[in-house]
């Protein structure tokens, strides 16, 4: 059996954990330091990020996690590039509260900016130190030292390996902010280095958290009602405890889990318990449309932006529109999973949570342990696209493990549990009001967005599902809007276009009928969908070409270049207009006005009988600053486009007054191969020297908008409410 022993499990990454004596030796402690890039300012000591052992093997630490976005490879690439070693000689330790800096949550596309820049500069510092050390050892000057492939070369053929050199100085020194980057030699950054995790993944060997197996391990299933707000009816637990293979039924308050040595026994026990039925526990869900409910709920108003300008003239042409999207599901392909071990009063959890540090804090509170006795280690799960069930299942695993001290417990959520309990992307409504001057330019702009919270990540035990089930329950976290410039429901509500007399307000709706939290790109998907659809509507009113209209109002030069590149590559000016059933659409945004720029053009055909949309061609241009891995960027954008097309065309979480009815893939269909575009091209604009910009969430909004615009172009009628289904298109064609 390929199962790991417990010892080797803990040794994952090469380090045996000893809680009792080491104290703070390994745990990273933050310090304050100004002027350092990325998260280096919170962890300014070089050995927080980089260590070199006596053999020359380099370990790099990051508080960020691999989510399938290729971050592991990109960070290795950055470090290897700067340190002049091959990527294979670097071990990257990611997101382990016992070993890595606390970089918060891997979210918001911040990793390259926060961790990438930190590692880049830390590595530059280390390179400088290695160069200094070699110069000292060779009694030569610094510019006579050349570093290559882990060895320092000096005059007269002298050489020393990094391991040898590093033994002579300490990396526990603070980074200097002005150390220059490596200037000569072959670069890895800018090359599409093959992802280090793909070979194992395509041969079946990769270790996801779902794959962890340890000696003496128990399989667990948590037992709940079908979705948030429900609970299981009383069941014959004694009978289930006697089922073959069931080692324990854990019960604490309303929390319940079954444990078995064989996974299938746990599944059967779960099904038996669920046969007792369920009931709604919270107040009823609305029977009205969720968007209408949100639009009419009590709000807390937060101004988003306010650009002064003369009021629109009286003869300005007014355009008004209301856009909406339903609640959306993360829908991670692999339901969430965690492995927990409670031993000697310490808790370790292997988790695919995006935020091991806040999770650790929440778990410590949940199981009433001091913080230093809890450790969370990130192990890859399937794509999470935001806050899915990862944190909740970690809590479920912890509680189950506490009941069987000394035995690792693997808690696996079922598909319907992930569908039923994962926090959703909020339903949202945007109302736009624009004024066009006689010269065809925008002279007034008003953006109002209604939304639930886009962040419910646990920062305390009350943010975990199990926290509400224990007796006494922990107080639930109060939903809060995320302040700009990041934003939640208002993310990307602030248009990058240069608009006079423009303002926007975020109407934050605290009361959420369905559980909500961060879904990839947060409010940007909706806001960009609305803004970019509206730009087309304004362009139409001004009788202007949609791309020209955007360029008129776009002053940011990088934005202009991305728009022009996409349009030219697509052949926008050459498109043949007016063909029935064929349409072209354009969409553009800079993610958060801080991240990557993405513009894309799309061609669709629409089959009139069924209203089905066939996306023929997508051409995108993206500017992510200095492109560490151009292919990694392309991969992310292609994926974002397909994912967004699925959201925008097909998806809507359904529910009745008592529970979610989107319980599996048959009830919540997502895009399958036959509906995927015929072709997607991504053009990466490289900007060497510019800061790395997060790309993972840059494509969703522009793709959604381009689709809406292409459909409107094809059928002569605008759909403003997602999902843009074939039924709605057919209805529009008939009216």
């Amino acid at each position, binding site marked *: 059996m390929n199962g790991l022993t417990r010892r080797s499990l803990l040794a994952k990454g090469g380090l045996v954990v000893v809680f009792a004596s080491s104290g703070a030796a390994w745990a990273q402690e933050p310090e304050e330091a100004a002027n350092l890039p990325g998260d280096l300012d919170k962890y300014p000591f070089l050995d927080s990020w980089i260590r070199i052992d006596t053999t020359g093997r380099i370990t790099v630490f990051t508080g960020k996690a691999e989510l*399938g976005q290729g971050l592991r490879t990109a960070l290795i690439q950055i470090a290897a590039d700067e340190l002049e070693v091959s990527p294979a000689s670097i071990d990257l330790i990611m997101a382990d509260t016992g070993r890595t800096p606390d970089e918060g949550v891997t979210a918001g596309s911040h990793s390259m900016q926060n961790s990438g820049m930190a590692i880049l500069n830390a590595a530059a510092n280390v390179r400088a130190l290695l160069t200094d050390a070699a110069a000292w050892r060779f009694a030569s000057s610094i510019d006579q030292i050349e570093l290559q492939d882990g060895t320092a070369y000096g005059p007269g053929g002298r050489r020393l390996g990094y391991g040898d050199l590093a033994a002579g100085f300490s990396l526990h020194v603070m980074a200097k902010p002005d150390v220059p980057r490596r200037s000569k030699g072959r670069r890895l950054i800018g090359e599409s280095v093959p992802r280090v995790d793909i070979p194992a993944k395509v041969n079946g060997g990769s270790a996801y958290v779902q794959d962890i197996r340890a000696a003496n391990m128990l399989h667990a299933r948590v037992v709940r009602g079908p979705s948030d707000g429900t609970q299981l009816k009383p069941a014959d637990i004694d009978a289930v405890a006697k089922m073959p293979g069931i080692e324990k039924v854990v019960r604490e308050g309303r929390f319940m889990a079954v444990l078995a040595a064989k996974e299938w026994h746990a599944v059967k026990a779960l099904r038996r318990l669920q046969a007792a039925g369920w009931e709604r526990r919270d107040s009823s869900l609305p029977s009205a449309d969720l968007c209408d409910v949100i639009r009419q709920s009590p709000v807390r108003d937060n101004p988003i932006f306010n650009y002064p300008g003369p009021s629109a003239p009286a003869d300005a042409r007014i355009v008004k529109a209301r856009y909406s999207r339903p609640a959306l599901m993360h829908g991670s*392909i692999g339901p969430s999973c965690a492995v927990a071990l409670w031993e000697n009063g310490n808790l370790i959890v292997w988790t695919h949570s995006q935020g091991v540090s806040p999770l650790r804090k929440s778990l410590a509170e949940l199981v009433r342990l001091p913080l230093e006795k809890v450790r969370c280690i990130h192990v890859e799960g399937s794509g999470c696209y935001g806050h899915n069930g990862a944190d909740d299942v970690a809590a479920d695993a912890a509680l189950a493990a506490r009941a069987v001290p000394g035995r690792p417990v693997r808690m696996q959520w079922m598909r319907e549990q992930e569908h039923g309990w994962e926090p959703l992307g909020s339903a949202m409504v945007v109302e736009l009001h624009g004024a066009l001057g006689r010269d065809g330019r925008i002279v007034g702009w008003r953006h109002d967005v209604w939304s639930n919270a886009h962040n419910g990540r646990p920062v305390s035990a009350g943010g975990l599902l199990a926290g509400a089930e224990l007796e006494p329950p922990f107080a639930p976290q109060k939903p809060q809007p995320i302040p700009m410039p990041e934003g939640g429901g208002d993310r990307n509500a602030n248009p990058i276009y240069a608009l006079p007399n423009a303002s926007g307000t975020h109407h934050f709706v605290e009361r959420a009928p369905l559980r909500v939290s961060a879904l990839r790109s947060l409010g940007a998907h909706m806001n960009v969908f609305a803004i970019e659809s509206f730009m087309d509507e304004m362009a139409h009113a001004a009788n202007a070409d949609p791309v020209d209209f955007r360029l008129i109002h776009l002053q940011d030069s990088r934005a202009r270049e991305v728009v022009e590149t996409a349009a030219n590559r697509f052949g926008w000016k050459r498109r043949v207009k007016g063909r029935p059933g064929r349409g072209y659409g354009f969409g553009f945004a800079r993610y958060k006005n801080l991240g990557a720029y993405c513009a894309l053009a799309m061609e669709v055909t629409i089959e009139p009988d069924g209203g089905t949309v066939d996306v023929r061609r997508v051409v995108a241009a993206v500017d992510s600053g200095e492109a560490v891995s151009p292919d990694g960027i392309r991969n992310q954008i292609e994926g974002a486009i397909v994912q967004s097309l699925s959201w925008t065309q097909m998806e809507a979480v359904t529910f009745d007054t008592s529970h979610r009815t989107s319980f599996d893939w048959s009830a919540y269909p997502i895009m399958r191969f*036959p509906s995927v575009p015929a072709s*997607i091209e991504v053009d990466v604009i490289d900007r060497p020297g510019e800061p790395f910009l997060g790309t993972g969430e840059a494509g969703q909004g522009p793709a959604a908008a381009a689709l809406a615009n292409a459909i409107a172009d094809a059928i002569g009628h605008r759909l403003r409410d997602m999902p843009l289904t074939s039924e709605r298109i057919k209805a529009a064609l008939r009216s």
Partner: protein
Amino acid sequence: MISLSVNGVAQSIDADPDTPLLYVLRDELGLHGAKFGCGLGQCGSCTVLVDDRPTFSCLLPIAALAGRKVRTIEGLGTPDRPGALAAAFDVEQAAQCGYCIAGMIMRAQALLERNNRPTEAELRTYLAPNLCRCGTHMRILRAVRRAAAAMGGGVQESSR
């Protein structure tokens, strides 16, 4: 004890006969390529080949497998000696989170073994039972096209 043939090796399994093959592969045999995605036959993450045909191992009890050949992704190759599809997926970097990929490769393997010259439409229809949430579809298609060519065939353009 139940006897199974997995990747050409006879295995003796101590598990209930109604245990779905997926759990036996992952928990008893240490073969983690096939994944749990839904357990409902809707996503294809658990796809393996049984007598050269693609099946959802999450819904296939081992009692049904006496005398039948099971093949998993581990049987197609290793990182050092990858099979044609694994090699193609690596070249095309056809993965983001990668969770669906083993199932995709097994499904594609079944297709290319029977017909290494499918049309584009046939290829897309054949892969339809397998879900990818990251949106890696374009690369997966490119990888299968590349593998088909490497296996002496090729995906034909259709009027799509």
